[in-house]
Structures are given as C-alpha cells and as structure tokens.
C-alpha cells in the first residue's frame, strides 16, 4: 500500500473519480496548469483536458455559481476555493443558492457540488489564510460539511462526497496537508458520511475533534496517558450531519467530554456538540462539557500559536474536567 500525504490522497481520489465518472469536473483559480496553489489538482488537466479541469477567472462567486449551474445540468463539479478565507465572496451563492436548490425546487433540481477548500491556521498565514469557518456552513440547512484528518480519511471521504447527491463543503486541514502521512489503498474505497471514528478507546474522558485539531487532541491525550489518564478520542469526520450516537455513547461511558476546536469559541460548532451531549447524557456527566477553542478574535499573525489550541492546553483541559 503506498504512503501518501493528504494532498496526494486528494489528488488520487479526484483522478480515480474522474476516470470512473465522466460527469466529474474541476474548476477553480490556478487548478489546471499550475495544479492548484497546494498542488492538489496537479497533473489532472494533462489526463482529463481543459474541459474537465478549468482554470477560472478570479471570482469565487463565479466559480461556485457556475458549478451550481453545471450540477443542475447533471455534471458533478468539484470546485476549489483557494483558501477558505476567500469563500466569502461566494457566501451568497453557497448559502442562498447551493444549499437551498433541492428544497426550493421541491427536489426537482438537486445541486450536487463538492466544494474543496483548505482551512485552518498554523502556517503563518494571518487573517486571510488561516480561518476555520465551518460553523457558518453547518448552520446553513442543506449543506453537508466534511473534514478529513489524514490521507486515508481524505481519499475515502472525498470519494463518498462526490458520489452522493447533496452539496458538500469539504474542508481540508492545510497545516497537515503534507505533515500527515499514511498508507492509502491504491484503488477504490469509501468512508461513509455521517459516521464518526473512535480513534482511540479510553475510559475517563472523551475528547472530540476534527481535521488538524485531531492531531492536537492526540498530543494532549498522549501527555495525559503519561499521567495515567485514559482518554477516548473521537474524530467527528462529518460535521453535518454529525454522528450523535458515537459521541453520546462514548460520553455515557466516560462521564466527561472535552471538545477541541480551532475556530473562535462563541457560537462555534463545539457549542452545538456541548449542548447535544448535555441534552442527551446529562445523567452520565460527572463534569461540565469543556470546550477548548480559538479565541473570539480575528485570526492573528505573530501570536498564532498562542491563539490555537495545543497539546499542553488539551492536557490541562482534560485535567480540569477530572478535577471538577
């Protein structure tokens, strides 16, 4: 089995699906000849030609708007937004158009568009190359939101996204684009959407994360293990619709929960998870559900590592729930 990083796994998934399904097309800024600024679409134009891998004018609303039209007509567009921070010029197209097409047409016009976009900080990118905007889209009825945490996950989840019939925001954790490496099957496999993954089993605290924060969470859990604390770690994978059962069952077992999220705290997705756990596992909880999040500030440049959760803060949050 070959070893790949996330970029290579995404590229492999796209190539595989474009070979399998002639309806799949890619469009975005610099995605064809240049292969994308992170190289995720590298080489695809050579194999599939400029009709299926399209460099677009620099206009995110146009990329998503055109992708919607293509999907209405019957194609399977996989547009790339160069950075999640640049998605906002297309916010109206995503929120008011893409997400609502199936509903407002009574199912006559589904719009299966899979938007790929790199998100998250830790790359010295400042305000506009670092944000984690998932909550805005999870809050939009009609969109699925999926975040892979490693290469195996990236390929299997992306293939599932392209093969189902609803619009998806596929957020790629760019900090670990190349740092996360692992074995990835060469051929076809899929990972079901809406199903979380128990990454590590444990007994005292459930730690929930997604994307690059899964690795931060594991750092903290490793430190806790050295202190004899047993944590169960859940990679949520699909944020909408999310796997309530896996998460709640785990908390019923451990009695404690820590959610690690890179995005700002207030109204972040961790708040929804916290509420869900409290509603469904109140009688099992031995401490309040803890959230470890980014700050309610714009994403900073120089102090970005102070802004982002890290292993030490994960550990102290775990200890806080145990000491409560």
């Amino acid at each position, binding site marked *: 089995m070959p070893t790949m990083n996330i970029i290579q796994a995404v590229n492999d998934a796209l190539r595989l699906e474009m070979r399998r399904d002639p309806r799949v*097309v890619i469009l975005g800024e610099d995605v064809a000849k240049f292969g994308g600024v992170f190289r995720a679409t590298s080489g695809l134009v050579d194999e599939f030609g400029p*009709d*299926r891998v*399209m460099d*677009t*004018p620099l*206009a995110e*609303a*146009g990329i*998503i*708007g*055109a*992708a*919607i*039209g*293509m*999907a*209405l*007509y*019957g*194609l399977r*567009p996989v547009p790339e937004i160069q950075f999640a921070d640049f998605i906002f*010029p297309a916010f*109206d*197209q995503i929120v*008011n*158009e893409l997400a*609502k*097409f*199936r*509903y*407002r*047409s*009574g*199912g*006559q*016009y*589904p719009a299966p568009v899979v938007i790929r976009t790199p998100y998250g900080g830790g790359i010295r990118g400042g305000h506009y190359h670092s944000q984690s905007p998932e909550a805005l889209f999870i809050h939009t*009825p*009609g969109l*699925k939101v999926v975040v892979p945490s490693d290469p195996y996950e990236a390929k299997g989840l992306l293939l599932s996204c392209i093969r*189902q*019939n*609803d619009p998806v925001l596929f957020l790629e954790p760019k900090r670990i684009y190349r740092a996360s490496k692992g074995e990835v099957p060469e051929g076809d496999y899929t990972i079901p959407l*809406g199903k979380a993954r128990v990454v590590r089993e444990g007994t005292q605290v459930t730690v929930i994360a997604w994307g690059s924060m899964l690795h931060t969470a594991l750092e903290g859990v490793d430190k806790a293990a050295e202190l004899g604390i047993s944590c169960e770690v859940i990679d949520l994978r699909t944020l909408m*619709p999310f796997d*309530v059962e896996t998460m709640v069952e785990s908390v019923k077992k451990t009695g404690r929960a820590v959610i690690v999220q890179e995005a700002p705290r207030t109204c972040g997705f961790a708040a929804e998870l916290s509420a869900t756990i409290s509603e469904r596992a109140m009688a099992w909880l031995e401490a309040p559900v803890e959230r470890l999040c980014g700050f309610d500030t714009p994403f900073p440049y120089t102090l970005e590592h102070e802004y982002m959760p890290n292993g030490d803060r994960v550990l102290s949050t775990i200890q806080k729930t145990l000491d409560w």
Partner: protein
Amino acid sequence: MEREPTVRGKASGKGQAHAAAPELRSAAADYLAGDDEAKARGLLQILRPDGTLVDEASLPDGVDRTEALRLYRGMLTIRIMDERLLALQRQGRIGFYGEARGQEAAVVGSSAATLPDDWIVPALREAGVGIFRGMPLRQYIAQIFGNANDPSRGRQMPCHPCDRERNYVVMSSCVSSQLPHAVGIAMAMKIAGDTGRCAVGYMGDGGTSEPDFHVALNFAGVYRSPVVLFCQNNQWAISTPGSSQTAAETIALKGIGYGVESLRCDGNDIFAVLAATRYACAKARRGDGPTFIEALTYRVSAHSSSDDPSRYRDESVTKTWREERDPLTRLRTFLAARGWLTAAEDAALADMIEREVREAIAAEESAGPPALATLVEDVFETVPRHLGEQMEELRGHQAG
C-alpha cells in the same frame, strides 16, 4: 425611451463588425450587421408603437397569422392572469404578486425564440416564459398558493415557479444570483457535448448592478458559453430609476467590456424581441458564444403587490407608457390591420383565457397544503436523523 427612429444604429466605426456586410435586406438585418458599439447604443425596432412595421422584410421568419396569434395569445394570457392574480392578492387570498404588465412582449418574444432543449433561468417577471413553453396554468397557480399540487411543495413565496420538465429553473429572490447558474448550465452543455442548445438567463435593470451579473458576463465571455443573458430594462428597481442605477449610457454597453456581443431592442415590440433573441440563441446553439440583450421596456405597474409607485415617481410618464406604448395594443393593432384578428375574435379569446384562469384558480385554491412531512424533506436527498427527530418533536406537540 422608445424614440422616433426605427433603428438607431449610430455607426461609430470604432467597434468590429461581426460579419462582412451582407446585402441590407431590412432594417432588422441592417441593425444586426452593425458593429458592436452601434448595436449596444442603438435600438432594434420592427413593430412601431402605432402597430405598423418598419418594413415588411424585418418581420421575423415564420411569423404568419398562426404564429402571430400564438404570440398574441401568450401575451394576453399573462395580462389576464396577472390582473386576476393581483386581484386575489388584494382580496387577501394570496400573499404576494409581482406582475409583468407592460412587459409581455419581452417575456413572450424571448420565450418564443427558445427550443424545448434550451434551459431557462428566470428572474421575477419571467413566469410567462415558462407558461409559453408549456408550463400548465394550474401548475403555476398551484405554486402561487403553495399547495399540495405545487411541484416545489410550497417552499417559496408566489411567482417562484419551477418546471423541470420544461428546463425552467426555479429562481431565488436574490437579484442576479441566477446568472452564474445560467452560464454554468451553458458551460455544462458545452462540456457534455450537447450542441444545438443554449441557456437563457434573465435579469432586470437593477440586477445589472449586482456583482453576479458581472461575474456571469465575464465567465460567459471567457468560456464562450452558449448562453443568452437577457435584461428586461423596465427602468425601475422598486423605487430606484435607471439613472440612479448606472452611469452607463445604455445597459447593453456593459456587455461589450466583457467581450460579449450586446444587442438592444425595443422590449415592447414583440417582433424586435423575437428577432434579437432568435439571433442570440441561434448563435449560441451553433457554438459562436454568448450574447447580452437589453430589452427596453417600462414597469407600468408597481414592483409588486407590496409597492406604491405614486410615492416616488411621476405617474404621468407611466400613463404614457401604459396608454401609448403598450405591447399588447401594439400587436393587436398590427393583427387587426392585417385582418388576422377581428374585435369579436379578440373578445372571444380574452373570454376563453379568463375562463381558463378562473377555473385554474378555483381548482388550486381549494387544494390543501403540502403534507406536514414535507417540511423536512428535500433539505437533503434523504431525511437525516436530526431532521427526523425535529419532525417527531413537532408531531409530539401537535398530538398535545
């Protein structure tokens, strides 16, 4: 601004002519053979406000008595239907209505240029485009009531029909956001190798200020998409006149900057609209790229049932458009002069349409609402667990 000359091609000589000048067989052909700037500044007119033709040769091909009456019937259907539905709104029987009064020529003329395989991406005043393509009146009215017969299942306010069978895409109320979709549909036609068809995307004059209008024109130009972008310039965006909307001399000129051939026609002249849209659709279908069309008309009624134009505009101007430039009157005069429609036939036709509209309203008004379960359906392809739970909670409350 339907001014006296028939064809206002101001040959500046700055633009590029699209074809070597053919023999000038008519005013319409003369206009269409003009250079880019002349077309975007000019005005194609075939049927004058007094109901006479500019010249016989400009009459679009195939417009015989049968076809002319079909166009007239399409326009009259919109007029009667709008009057009836606006009355229903005033009576509190429907929640909202947006008329196309005075714009029926732009609606029917452009629709008549489309073929069944073409796709329509409408804005607010193009329900008549769908109806002229065969959308049943009852289906349209079911959407107005948002009842169980509405194919869109009561999901949007009135005047947002959707008809997959006739490639008529549902609109949102967000102005011009549909235009990139029209271009994307056209791009997909090209990618899929489906030649001989095109997409037609509509907007109003206000819509040409929106970013998505510019994005759409730009993409259409770059990809040479088989798309027609059709602007019904009715000169008012709610209370904002065209002069406050843009400093451009004409709206059509905006297309030229994007490398998109742009036409300007008299939107109250059914034949000019038909000729311009036919030209654009045929060009798109044969792979020669996009066209932007400005159809100059006037919103003689309110923006919608929620609006009162007397608060912000001089209604004596409106009166002129209503009484002297009405597109239906203009076509009716033409038909009468040719002996193609007598007053008695006209009255009988109006009676028949009125009856059809009233019957459709009666049938749809009595239909019940969509089933409760539809509240959470079509958000996704299948109802996910959380929506199922939310529906159960509602049912629990209702059960008391």
